[in-house]
């Protein structure tokens, strides 16, 4: 009887956790922000944005999170070099951009051509796209992309 009493609340707890576990969110341990907050911060700190376009239930996002974003070197580079933004490209969540424009996350996905997920886009502070990665990424892909962006920014500031 006691065991039954224990099993029921555990099952309820598991049911509540399941959807959360199945979601593909931003990778754990990274300071990802909503896009509008990230843009504001990017303008204030004059740092480029790294935007992760994911989607609820995106298996390839989860794979990239588990296999590439867990790497300490990736984490160090992306935290140091970029303002990080996460966008659920199917969500109706409303954002207000620094321009005053109100936009939904899914409209933002369309605007940045994130019609599949995951897509990782590097933007400057004005929102202009600099470079993007499509699909599952490995550790070396993310490090190489960072090196390219950093080299291009360095060249632009020291022509």
């Amino acid at each position, binding site marked *: 009887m006691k065991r039954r009493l224990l099993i029921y609340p555990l099952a309820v707890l598991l049911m509540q956790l399941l*959807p959360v576990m199945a979601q593909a969110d931003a990778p754990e341990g990274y300071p990802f922000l909503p896009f509008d907050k990230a843009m504001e911060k990017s303008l204030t700190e004059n740092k480029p944005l790294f935007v992760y376009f994911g989607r*609820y*239930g995106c298996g390839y996002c989860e794979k990239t999170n588990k296999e590439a974003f867990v790497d300490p070197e990736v984490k160090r580079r992306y935290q140091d070099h970029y303002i990080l933004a996460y966008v659920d490209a*199917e969500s*109706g969540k409303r954002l207000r951009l620094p*321009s005053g424009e*109100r936009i939904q996350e899914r409209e933002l996905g369309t605007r940045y051509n994130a019609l599949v997920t995951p897509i990782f886009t590097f933007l400057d502070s004005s929102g202009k796209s600099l470079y993007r990665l499509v699909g599952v990424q490995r550790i070396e892909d993310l490090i190489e992309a960072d090196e390219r962006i950093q080299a291009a920014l360095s060249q632009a500031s020291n022509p």
Partner: protein
Amino acid sequence: MKRWLAALLLASLSLDPAVAQSWNFEQAIDVSSELPEGAFQHLDASGRRSIAVGENTVGVVWEDDRDGTPRVYFAYKDFTASQFSQALRISGADEAYEPGLVALSEQRYALVWEENGGIWIRLLSIQGGVELGPAQRLDPAESAQGSVVADGDNLLVLRSERDGSFTRIRLQTLRANGLVTSRQTDCPVDAEAPTDDQLYPTAAWVQGRLVVAWEDRRPKHTIIMTATQQESGKCLFTPPRRTSESSIS
């Protein structure tokens, strides 16, 4: 035999006026030209029901923030008129989003939108000048993404309503009396309790029955589900069926 069939098909296609004639687009007309610089307009009705055609008139509903707050506006024009009416504010004091509309008889329109965490409905008449009915909230529960269709003077309003941890598609039927609505029935489209979010409903009449479609996240990603009204006028639907491809993950 196959060649004969192909030739017959081609011949029948060439006789079809819809195939033979290309589309003709007239010059675009501004629906609202009164916006100050820096204001943003949105056509984001659930099911994309932002435009409706009535008796010799066309109505458009949208949201913009011309006064700094997102609000709902409506404009209309006669088929033959060269410009739209002045924008008419429909929503109340709070931020308002995602309006949709449907045309009714006697030059009336029914408009729905989201405001203050719920779905609102308002009727208006453009017969001999604009007359606005009262804004009425469908239900006190938290809901969004309203969509409206009509069956004569019966209005069928869909919404995505918070139901515990998830959102659930509900249908409310209302009777339009002049510019006032009275609630008839209210039921979930899927009789089973949701196991994940149900979002962005829309509906269409198919052979006299209402077919409701929505985004559904029950397999832990987004699919499209549909359910059909079992009997005209009844708030009872067939078990929902997946209509999007099963291979997409």
